[in-house]
């Protein structure tokens, strides 16, 4: 059974978003990292780049396959997790903590309301297990 961060909201494609001060932190869920298996590379954008909700944010490469990751919210990249370059397995070990991907300045906070609540995501991702 996968764990859910109750403080985050979710996209059905298994990204999470969590508000921290003025920024929103983004990563992938425990369900996603478990389904992908050992993660060996994460390709992330540079800071300053601007994305719309649903844009491809980067790529997660597991032993098995490459998977696109999508922006849960529109916004500008404020910070990128540089630790993933040397230790992509942080996504497997701590997907809601040290395995975060990017922090963004969210452009449209109303989009936040459209994301899945932890309870709704638990139901959604549970259907795949």
């Amino acid at each position: 059974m996968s764990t859910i961060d109750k403080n985050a909201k979710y996209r059905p494609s298994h990204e999470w978003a969590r508000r921290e001060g003025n920024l929103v932190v983004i990563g992938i869920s425990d369900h996603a990292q478990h389904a992908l298996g050992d993660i060996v590379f994460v390709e992330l954008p540079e800071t300053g780049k601007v994305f719309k909700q649903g844009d491809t944010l980067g790529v997660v490469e597991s032993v098995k396959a490459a998977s696109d990751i999508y922006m849960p919210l529109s916004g500008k990249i404020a910070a990128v997790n540089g630790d993933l370059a040397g230790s992509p397995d942080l996504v497997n070990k701590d997907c809601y903590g040290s395995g975060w991907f990017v922090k963004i300045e969210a452009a449209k906070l109303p989009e936040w309301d459209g994301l899945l609540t932890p309870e709704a995501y638990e139901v959604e991702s549970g259907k795949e297990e």
Partner: protein
Amino acid sequence: MTPFAGYDMPITYPTGAVEEHLACRRSVGLFDIDHMGQLEVSGPGADEFVSRMASAKILDMKDWDARYSLLLNEKGTVIDDLFIYRRPGAWWIVINASNRETDLAWFGAHKGAGVSVVDRSDDTYMIAVQGPNAIALLDAVSDRKISGFPRFTSGDAKVAGVPCFVGRTGYTGEDGAELFFPAGKAVKLWDALIAEGIRLGFATIPVGLAARDSLRFEAGMPLHGHEISPEINAIEAGFKWACDFDKEFTGKAALQAVLSEGPKRKLVTIEVQGGVPREGYQVLSPDGVPIGKAVAGMFCPTVRKYACNAFVDPAFARSGTDVQVVIHGKPKSGIVAKRPLYLPTYRR
């Protein structure tokens, strides 16, 4: 689990592919490889027949010797790769699961009178025990010292009470053995190896298909359908060493022509920065001109590198040559590496 040549095979166990790979390099990996096929060739004409079918030197093999060979067609391209064991009175040939029907048909079409080819795949189970602690583990549960079998030889032994044919061979670059035994004894033998590993304090880890692939890839060993296939000749794949041009074998004339003209492409290993190269990805020159395609690629856990094998224009085949690999539409810098990335223990 994934379907593989008619078998349900685990891509990984719950341990995870990277740790399975590293555990095999560090201690012992157990491989459930019943899918591999086994043919037994015997009869008065068997020695000459095997020598003509196999690219490698065969007739100098003594009883219990084991040797790698290719099975080539007249074009010198690769029908399959084989491990050939010489048992007293019979040749024991290990073939790839997906090529079983093809190989049987090929042998059947070429064997003359006085040669018997029997498919022993269904009644034979195969488990590989690989890693620096593998032989000590096998010694502890066998009625003979497996450590007394030199590398690339074989012998009969009871392992955990199960009568096995034991080859001091493998597909990981580590020391170890491959066990052939009656199919009904698989669970008993597997459980006994795990239990003995625990008793001896050796991490003894089941290894799935993904780590089996990365182990063989690092060690520079080919996987049929990737580095070798009926569309790839033995010379361009780098297997001149497995061809004995002092004897007659199927495909010899075609390979001699390739050697005199020079191969049109060569297999290289490319280390890539900034992404994971995979099968089918385009390889470019530093100027952006297409020079080949990747046939396999992955993260290599022991050497901690991203690498692919590719067939490229021979002008770019020398180690140290700069190339590019297109990953998700973007060219990433790569360099042709010295093969193999991980030197197998038997070559040290």
